[in-house]
C-alpha cells in the first residue's frame, strides 16, 4: 500500500509530473525564444537561459503590495502550477499505459487546463493594482471567449472514438486524418495560443500599455512560479493536441514512433511561435468576436462532420 502511494507520488512529482514537465517546458520556452530570434535574424538566447531566468527569480526579493490580499496573492501561482502538473501527469500516463486511464479524463483535463488562467485572474485581483485588475478582467473575457470553441474542437476526437477516455482516443485512427479533425485542430491551435496568452492574444499582459498587466505586482518566487507554469503550459498543451488529434507521442511504437511524436509536437510549437511573431495584438472585443464568431462556427461544423462520420 505504501509503495503504491510512493509510486503515485513519484509519478506526480518526478515523471511525468512536475520535474519532467518543468524541464521540458523550459526547453520548449527556449525553442520558442530561439525560433523568435531566428525569425528576427538574430542569434538568440543560450540554451540554459530559461533556467537562469527561473533561478534568478528565486533569489530575488518577493514584494507583497500594501493593501493587497496577502495570502491569495502568494497562493495564486500555486493553483496554476498544481493544475498543469496534474494535467501533464494524466496526459502522459494515458500515453504510457492507455488502459489505465479513467473514463472522463478528457473532461478533467479541460478543467485542469483552465486553472492557470483562474490563478492569474485571482493573483491579478488580489494585488490591488488598477493595471493588474484590467489585465485580470481581460483574462476572464478571454477565457470565456476561447473555452467555447476549444470544448467543441475537443468534442471531435471524442465523437470519433466514441469515448471520453484519452486512452481510447489514442487507440483509434488519428483525427487529423479526417476532414473534421483538420478543422478542429486548426481551431484548437488558435485556442491554445489564447490559453498561453501569446501574441495576438496577449491582452492580459499587454507589455506595451498594461506593462505586465496581471503579473505587474509580482516579483521573486511567485513570479518564477507563474513563468514556470506558463512554460509548462507551452509544453503540455501541444502534447495534449498531439494526443487528441495526432495519435499521441508514439510511446508504444518504439523509437521511430517517439521521433514522429516529437516531430508533431515541435511542429505545433513552431506554428504557435510563428503566429506569435507575425501577428499584431487584437483588442479584447475583436478577440471575443473572433472566438465566438468564426471559430465557434468552424468548430460546430467540425462537430457536425464528425457526427456524420467524416
Amino acid at each position, binding site marked *: 500500500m505504501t509503495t503504491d502511494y510512493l509510486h503515485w507520488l513519484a509519478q506526480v512529482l518526478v515523471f511525468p509530473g512536475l520535474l519532467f514537465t518543468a524541464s521540458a517546458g523550459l526547453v520548449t520556452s527556449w525553442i520558442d525564444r530561439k525560433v523568435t*530570434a531566428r525569425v528576427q535574424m*538574430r542569434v538568440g*538566447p543560450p540554451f540554459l537561459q530559461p533556467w537562469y531566468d527561473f533561478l*534568478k527569480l528565486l*533569489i530575488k526579493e518577493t*514584494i507583497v503590495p500594501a493593501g493587497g490580499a496577502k495570502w491569495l496573492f502568494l497562493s495564486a501561482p500555486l493553483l496554476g502550477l498544481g493544475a498543469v502538473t496534474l494535467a501533464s501527469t494524466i496526459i502522459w500516463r494515458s500515453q504510457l499505459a492507455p488502459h489505465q486511464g479513467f473514463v472522463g479524463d478528457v473532461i478533467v483535463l479541460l478543467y485542469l487546463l483552465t486553472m492557470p488562467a483562474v490563478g492569474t485572474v485571482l493573483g491579478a485581483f488580489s494585488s490591488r493594482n488598477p493595471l493588474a485588475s484590467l489585465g485580470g478582467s481581460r483574462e476572464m473575457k478571454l477565457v470565456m471567449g476561447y473555452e467555447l470553441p476549444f470544448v467543441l474542437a475537443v468534442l471531435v476526437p471524442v465523437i470519433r472514438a466514441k469515448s471520453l477516455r484519452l486512452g481510447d482516443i489514442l487507440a483509434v485512427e488519428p483525427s487529423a486524418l479526417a476532414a473534421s479533425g483538420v478543422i478542429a485542430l486548426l481551431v484548437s491551435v488558435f485556442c491554445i495560443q489564447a490559453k498561453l496568452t501569446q501574441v495576438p492574444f496577449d491582452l492580459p499582459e499587454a507589455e506595451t500599455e498594461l*506593462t505586465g498587466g496581471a*503579473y505587474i505586482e509580482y516579483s521573486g518566487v511567485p513570479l518564477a512560479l507563474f513563468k514556470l507554469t506558463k512554460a509548462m503550459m507551452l509544453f503540455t498543451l501541444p502534447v495534449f493536441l498531439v494526443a487528441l488529434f495526432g495519435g499521441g507521442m508514439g510511446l508504444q511504437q518504439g523509437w521511430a514512433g517517439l521521433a514522429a511524436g516529437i516531430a508533431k509536437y515541435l511542429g505545433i510549437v513552431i506554428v504557435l511561435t510563428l503566429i506569435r511573431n507575425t501577428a499584431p495584438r487584437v483588442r479584447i472585443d475583436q478577440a471575443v468576436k473572433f472566438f465566438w464568431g468564426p471559430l465557434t462556427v468552424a468548430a460546430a461544423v467540425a462537430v457536425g462532420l464528425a457526427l456524420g462520420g467524416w
Partner: protein
Amino acid sequence: MGLALQILTRSLNVFHMAGSACNNCDIEILDALTPKYDLERFGLVLVGSIRHADVILLSGVFNKKSALRAKLVYEQAPKPVVVVAIGGCACSGLMFKDSYNWDQPVGRYIPIDAYIPGCPPKPEAMIAGIVKLLTKLRSA
C-alpha cells in the same frame, strides 16, 4: 550574495526610467535593444514593470521633482537590483547643472553602479559599460 549576483548577471531584466530626458538617450537605449545588437544573447530583455526589473536604466536630467520619483522607483524594485546612469545628464547634470530646479546629481539620491556618459552614448558604449559592470559583479 556572491552566488546571487552570479545568477543575476546571467539574466538581466532591464527597466528603463526616463526622467525629463530629451529622448536622445532613450532612442539610443532602444537602438541597443534592436535585433542588430541582439542583447538577448546575454539574457538581457526589456520589461515593463519595475517589480520584474534587475537593472534600472536612468536617462535624462533628474531635477528636484523627478529625482524623488527615481528614488521611489528604486525603492519599489525587488533587490538585488543594479542601477545604471545613461548619458551625461543622468551622470552629472551636464548643462542643466545651474538650472533653478536642479540641485544635485541623481547619484546622490540613489546608489548608482555604473555611469555611461555621452550625449547620447552610442549603443556600443552602453554594451561596453554593461559588460564592464557584469565583469565587476562576477569577480566580486
